[in-house]
């Protein structure tokens, strides 16, 4: 059993399609909790339903104060920041971050604060640079930073910015990210000393 028990994923433009592919590769018995933020409009509350159809992983729309457990995926609801504290979901309607709510940085920063080296952060396709500061926080707390290869992303800016600001552990095409996450969680793979 590895120490990596929390996976946080952030995506923006092109993110719903990317996530559908990614989560289809995650198993029902994944030994980690998965928390997901996608920039969407305040009206789109169907993301959890959409993703639940693509994965054997138990998938729910995150609710405030919900306990966080392994083998479950929690999707940020519209118009709320999704953060974690004491192994529980904390939803807030605080000020927008990077012009978004939910935003990726608050999830990543709170996960880094609460789970330290137990966190794997994943930044996928999107415009601008939400997730860069969050991924840096994950990294500096001893967690693992994963970025979708910009050349493989529908919109390369967000992964490219994360690469620019963070010394990431893995930069891979989408199709290789789910297998990597499984290996990291199972402890079959550890980040190398030398990173790209």
């Amino acid at each position, binding site marked *: 059993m590895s120490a990596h028990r929390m996976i946080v994923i952030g995506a923006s433009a092109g993110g719903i399609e990317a996530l559908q592919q990614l989560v289809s590769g995650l198993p029902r018995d994944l030994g980690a909790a998965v928390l997901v933020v996608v920039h969407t409009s305040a009206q789109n509350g169907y993301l959890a339903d959409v993703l639940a159809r693509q994965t054997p992983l138990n998938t729910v729309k995150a609710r405030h104060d919900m306990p966080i457990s392994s083998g479950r995926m929690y999707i940020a609801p519209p118009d709320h920041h999704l953060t974690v504290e004491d192994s529980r979901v904390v939803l807030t309607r605080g000020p927008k971050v990077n012009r978004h709510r939910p935003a990726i940085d608050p999830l990543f920063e*709170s996960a880094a604060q609460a789970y330290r080296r137990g966190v794997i952060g994943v930044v996928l396709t999107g415009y*601008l640079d939400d997730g860069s500061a969050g991924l840096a926080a994950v990294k500096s707390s001893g967690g693992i930073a994963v970025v979708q290869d910009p050349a493989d992303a529908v919109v390369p800016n967000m992964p490219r910015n994360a690469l620019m600001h963070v010394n990431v552990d893995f930069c891979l095409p989408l199709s290789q990210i789910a297998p990597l996450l499984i290996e990291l969680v199972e402890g079959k793979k550890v980040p190398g000393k030398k990173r790209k």
Partner: protein
Amino acid sequence: MERRARLKRRSGESTKVKHQGEPSVFTCPDCQGTLFSLRDGGMIRFQCRIGHLYSPESMLEAQDDNVERLMWSATRALEEQAEYISQMADQIAKASDQPTADGYAAKSRSAMEKARKLRLLLDTDLTLPNGRIARSAQSR
């Protein structure tokens, strides 16, 4: 019990992760509050008292939107003024004070001309093929 109380309080709190920073010379594009600059590693971010937080690129985008909104506001103010002065000119012309009416009409045309120039500037900016993205691609 203690945790519940904290979570409850937190849910009404403005921001999850509190940051500290130095006051900057910039104001928040969303609420006009003073922005504090935060340095995390190599990245400079901005946060206002309320808790609006901006990464480097989102700050730029927010400023773009703010500038556009204010230029439209100025355009609207000028067009409204042109309309109002023109109505005044009509009233005065009816009262047979043609020289004064002409003066007002000229002022109305001047306001309309300023508004036209602003619209031209806005249109020119907007016709760039997605200016924002083109610029961020160039800077790489």
